[in-house]
C-alpha cells in the first residue's frame, strides 16, 4: 500500500472515530440529569422565562433535530444563536456553543487553555525520553549490577505511583519545605514568551522563559514520572531482547566496536517498539495532564473539564471532551504514520 492510500485510509478511520466521539458526547448531555436552564437561571424565575431560555438553547426541539444541529455545528461551524447572559446579545462560536456559566464562546475558552496543556504534555515527554532511554540502556548493558537494580526498582515504583500524589509530595518537599519551586500556577506561557520575543523585548523574553521553566518543572516531573518509568522498562527489556539476537554476535565477530553495535544497531531497533507503546500511551499522558493540572492549578484543558463538570456547564464539558478526543485521534494518526516511515520492516497496511 502506498503512503497516500495509507493516509487516506487512516484519515477516514479518524473521521469515523471523531463522529463516534461527537455522538457519545451528545448522548452524555442528553442522558445527564438536570435541566440546563437551571444552570442559567436563578431559581425564582417564572415558567415563561424558563420556556424562552429552553427554546433559545434549542432544547425544545426533537432529539434528532438537536443531534443534527450539534453535529453540523461542529462540522461546519454554524453560529448557534445563543445569547450572552451579561449583554443579552447573541453569541456565535466555532460550533462548540456558548458556556452556560460565563456566556462566552466555548471554542475560545478551550483554545486559550490548550497551550498550557500542550506545554505540560510536551515537557513531560521530554523529561521522560531524556531520562528513560539512557537509564534503560545503562540498565540493560550492565545487567545484574547496582545501577540495573536501581533502574528496575525505580521503574516498578514509577508505574505504581499515582501522579497526583507524587505532585502533592513534590510540592510539600521541594516547594513548601525547601522553597526551590513555586507551589502552583503558571505565571507565563510559551505564547506570552513568543509575544515578547516578537515585539523585540529580548531580555524580558529570556526572563519570561526562565520563569516559565521554573513554574513548569514540578508539573512536568509529576506528569513525566510514569512515562519515564515505563520507557525505562521498555528500553531495558527491548535492548536485552535485541542484544541476544544473532546479528549482534555477527557484528561483533566481524570486529565492529562494541559501542557502535550497541548504540547504532541495537538501540535503533529497540526504539521502534518504544515509539508504538508511547503512541498507545498518549491517552494516559493527556489523562494524567488533567490531574496534574488540578494539583498545580495549571490553567489547561483539564481544569476547564473539571470545573465545567462541577458547575454542570454542559457546552463547556462537551467542547473540552471533543477537543481532547480529537487531539488524541490526530496524534495517533501522526504516530502511526511516523512509525511506518521510520520502520522499514512495517508496510502500510
Amino acid at each position, binding site marked *: 500500500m502506498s503512503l497516500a492510500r495509507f493516509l487516506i485510509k487512516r484519515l477516514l478511520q479518524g473521521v469515523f472515530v471523531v463522529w463516534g466521539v461527537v455522538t457519545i458526547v451528545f448522548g452524555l448531555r442528553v442522558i*445527564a440529569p438536570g435541566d440546563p436552564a437551571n444552570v442559567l437561571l436563578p431559581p425564582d424565575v417564572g415558567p415563561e422565562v424558563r420556556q424562552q431560555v429552553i427554546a433559545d438553547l434549542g432544547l425544545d426541539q426533537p432529539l434528532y433535530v438537536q443531534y443534527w444541529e450539534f453535529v453540523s455545528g461542529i462540522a461546519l461551524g454554524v453560529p448557534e444563536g445563543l445569547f450572552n447572559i451579561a449583554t443579552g446579545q447573541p453569541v456565535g462560536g466555532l460550533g462548540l456553543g456558548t458556556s452556560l456559566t460565563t456566556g462566552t464562546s466555548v471554542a475560545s475558552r478551550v483554545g486559550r487553555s490548550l497551550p498550557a496543556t500542550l506545554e505540560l504534555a510536551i515537557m513531560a515527554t521530554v523529561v521522560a525520553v531524556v531520562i528513560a532511554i539512557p537509564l534503560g540502556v545503562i540498565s540493560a548493558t550492565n545487567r545484574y549490577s547496582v545501577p540495573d537494580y536501581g533502574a528496575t526498582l525505580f521503574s516498578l515504583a514509577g508505574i505504581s505511583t499515582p501522579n497526583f*500524589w507524587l505532585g502533592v509530595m513534590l510540592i*510539600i518537599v521541594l516547594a513548601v519545605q525547601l522553597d526551590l519551586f513555586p507551589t502552583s500556577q503558571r505565571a507565563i506561557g510559551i505564547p506570552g514568551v513568543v509575544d515578547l520575543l516578537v515585539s523585540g523585548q529580548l531580555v524580558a523574553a529570556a526572563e519570561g522563559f526562565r520563569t516559565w521553566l521554573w513554574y513548569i518543572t514540578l508539573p512536568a516531573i509529576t506528569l513525566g514520572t510514569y512515562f519515564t518509568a515505563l520507557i525505562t522498562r521498555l528500553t531495558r527489556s527491548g535492548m536485552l531482547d535485541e542484544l541476544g539476537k544473532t546479528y549482534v554476535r555477527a557484528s561483533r565477530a566481524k570486529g565492529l566496536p562494541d559501542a557502535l553495535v550497541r548504540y547504532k544497531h541495537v538501540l535503533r531497533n529497540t526504539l521502534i517498539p518504544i515509539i508504538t507503546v508511547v503512541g498507545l500511551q498518549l491517552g494516559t499522558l493527556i489523562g494524567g495532564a*488533567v490531574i496534574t493540572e488540578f494539583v498545580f492549578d495549571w490553567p489547561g484543558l483539564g481544569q476547564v473539564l473539571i470545573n465545567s463538570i462541577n458547575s454542570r456547564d454542559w457546552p463547556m464539558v462537551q467542547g473540552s*471532551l471533543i477537543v481532547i478526543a480529537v487531539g*488524541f*485521534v490526530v496524534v495517533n494518526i501522526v504516530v502511526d504514520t511516523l512509525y511506518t516511515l521510520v520502520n522499514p520492516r512495517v508496510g502500510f497496511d
Partner: protein
Amino acid sequence: MIAPRTIRSLKRGLSRNALAKVGIAIVVVVLFVAIFAPFVAPDRPGTQNLNESRQPPIGFEKATTQEVPVKENGSVVFEDGQIVTENRTVYENSSWDHPLGTDGNGRDILSRLIYGARVSLLVGFFGTGLAMLVGVTVGLTAGYYRGKVDDVLMRSADVMLAFPSIVLAIALIGVLQDALEQSIPDPFVQTGVAPAFRSALGLPTGMPESTTLPGTIIVVVALVNWVWFARVARGEALSLREESYVKAARALGANDASIMFRHVLPNAITPILVLGTIQIAAIILLESALSFLGFSSANISWGFDIALGRQYQSTAWWISAMPGLAIVITVIGLNLVGDWLRDALDPGIEGEGGV
C-alpha cells in the same frame, strides 16, 4: 479449568522470581487487613478528636521553639501592660495509639488507611469483574462472528479509546452522579463479633456499621476499561474459532452462545485473567484519582484522604503522604503478581496502566 501444566509453570515462575513472592505477600496482607478491618484497625476511622489533631507518626516527633506566656500560679503575668513571654521547646508528640499519626481532625490515619483499603479493593475487584464481563462478552461475540458484527463492536471500542480513561470517567460521573451509591453492612460489626473482640482487647469500640460501596465509580471504571478485555477476548476468539473442537461442536448443532462460553472462553481464560490482575491495579489507581478529584461519595478513601491532607501541606506532611504510600505499596504488589503471571503464562497482552 486450570491445567496442571499451567500450575507447574506458575510454580516455576515463583521459585525463580523472589519479587513475585513479595507481590503475593503484599496482596495477601492488604486483602486480610481490608476484610478484617473492624478487628485490626486500632481506632475508629471516622471519629474526630480535635485535641489530638495533626499528631506526627512514630519516629517523626518534632521539637519546635515557640513563644509562650509565662504563668505564675496558673495565670499570665503582666509587665508594663504586656504579657510576659518566654521561649520554650514544644514537642509535637507521637504516640503508639496513632502509629501513623492523626489527620487534621485528629482521626487515626492507620485506621483510615485500613478502612480505605476496603473501598479501593471493592472498586478494584468489582470494577474489574464488571469490565471483564462486558469486555469478554463483546470480544467473544466480535471474534466469533467476525464480519459486520466485529466491525461495529470493535469500531465502537476504538471510539471509547479516543478518550483518555480519566477524562471519560469524569464525564460519565457527570452523567451518573451518585445515582448508584450503596452502603453494605459490615457483618463482623452487625453480628457483634468485632465489638466483643475489641472490648476484650481494650480497643476503642463503635466501629462503622457499614462500608460505602461506590456503585457509580464501579460502573464508571468498568465502562472505561472493558475495551482492553474486549480486545484480548476477540483476539483469542478469532484464533480459537478455527480449532477442530469448536468446529466439531458446531457440527453437532451446539448453539453459538454455548460454543462461545463453553468451548472458546475456557481456552481463552489465561490471558483474560492475567489482564484482570493488571487491570485491578489500574482501576485502583483510577479510583484513587477520582476520589482525589472529589468525584467519589466514599468518605474514607485513599485518594480522598490525600486531598484532605493538602490543606496541611506546610504543617503535617504525613496526612497526604501515608494514603499515597498505601496506594503505591498495594499497586506495586498487584503489578508484581501481574508480572509473575504474565511471565509464567506468557499470553502476550497489552493494556493501559497508569493514572
